[in-house]
């Protein structure tokens, strides 16, 4: 109950503030000394991640998610993100990241006696140029008797115009999520992404009419 209220409250507040302020989803490691807040809202729930980049290959932070479909639960705890491999090319960049954490999970509305140990890990691979974007992500979650699941996500996107550093950048994307444990396992979401300097926001509506809205702020 406490975990759920804390995370849901934080996400709602963040969502409201983001709507008021205006602007998504980014690499889990930024620049050394940089802090990044990522907040995601879709038909599966609300996710909040805060990361601080320690070295070019390691970021530490917090990850939390409230699931609102299927088994409703909230999970939260510290997370370590690592850059496994990066390809810096003249016209593109490719990356492989891992995101691993451990913490507590609790069914939404349950008492503290229901709190369980949880651990999660994931791998994210992406490649982008100024014109195209592709990514693939696989996540595994273990929370004792509350949740044992895996899901995967793929994205492709293109920029309708080549924006430079000081311009508003616009991307048209297609996201496909696969949650094998859920009754509606596949979700396809056309979306649009905008970013300007250190703020990024994206939104879309999936083929079932469910809304997705994400934002990221770098400091």
């Amino acid at each position, binding site marked *: 109950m406490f975990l759920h209220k804390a995370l849901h409250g934080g996400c709602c507040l963040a969502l409201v503030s983001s709507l008021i302020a205006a602007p998504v989803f*980014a*690499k889990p*490691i*930024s*620049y*050394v*000394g*940089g802090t990044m807040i990522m907040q995601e809202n879709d038909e599966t729930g609300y996710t909040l991640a805060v990361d601080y980049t320690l*070295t*070019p290959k390691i970021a530490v932070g917090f990850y939390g998610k409230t699931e609102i479909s299927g088994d409703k639960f909230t999970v939260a705890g510290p997370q370590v993100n690592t*850059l496994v491999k*990066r*390809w*810096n*090319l*003249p*016209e*593109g*960049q490719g990356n492989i990241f891992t995101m691993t954490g451990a913490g507590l999970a609790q069914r939404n509305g349950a008492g503290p006696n229901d709190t369980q140990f949880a651990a999660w890990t994931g791998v994210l691979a992406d490649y*982008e*140029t*100024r014109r195209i974007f592709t990514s693939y992500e696989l996540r595994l979650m273990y929370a004792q008797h509350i949740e044992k699941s895996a899901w995967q996500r793929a994205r492709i996107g293109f920029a309708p115009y*080549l*924006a*430079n*550093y*000081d*311009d508003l*950048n616009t991307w048209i994307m297609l996201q496909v999520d696969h949650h094998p444990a859920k009754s509606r396992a596949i979700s396809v979401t056309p979306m649009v992404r905008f*970013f*300007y*300097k*250190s703020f*990024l926001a994206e939104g879309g509506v999936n083929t079932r009419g469910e809304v997705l809205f994400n934002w*990221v702020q*770098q400091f």
Partner: protein
Amino acid sequence: MRNVIVTLLTISVLTASAARAETIVATVNGMVCAFCATGIEKSFKKQTAVAAIKVDLEGRKVTVQTKPDATLGDAVVTKLITDAGYAVVDIARQP
């Protein structure tokens, strides 16, 4: 005569100081995403030697203007860009 000497000395000192400011142009690989590249700008702006910075995705360049009398070595430029996640290909300097 004394005023003329003082004026000339002042001009020469100012000219010498101004000459010490320089423009550093780094060619960078991997710099394709404006959102991600903001780390470069933020890192350089924390340096006291930096007067201005410009990131150009199209030209793959990071241009840094130093303050008069300030210096920024190649090693520092390379570290700041590498720490932001990119690869430095070349560094050129213009007085």
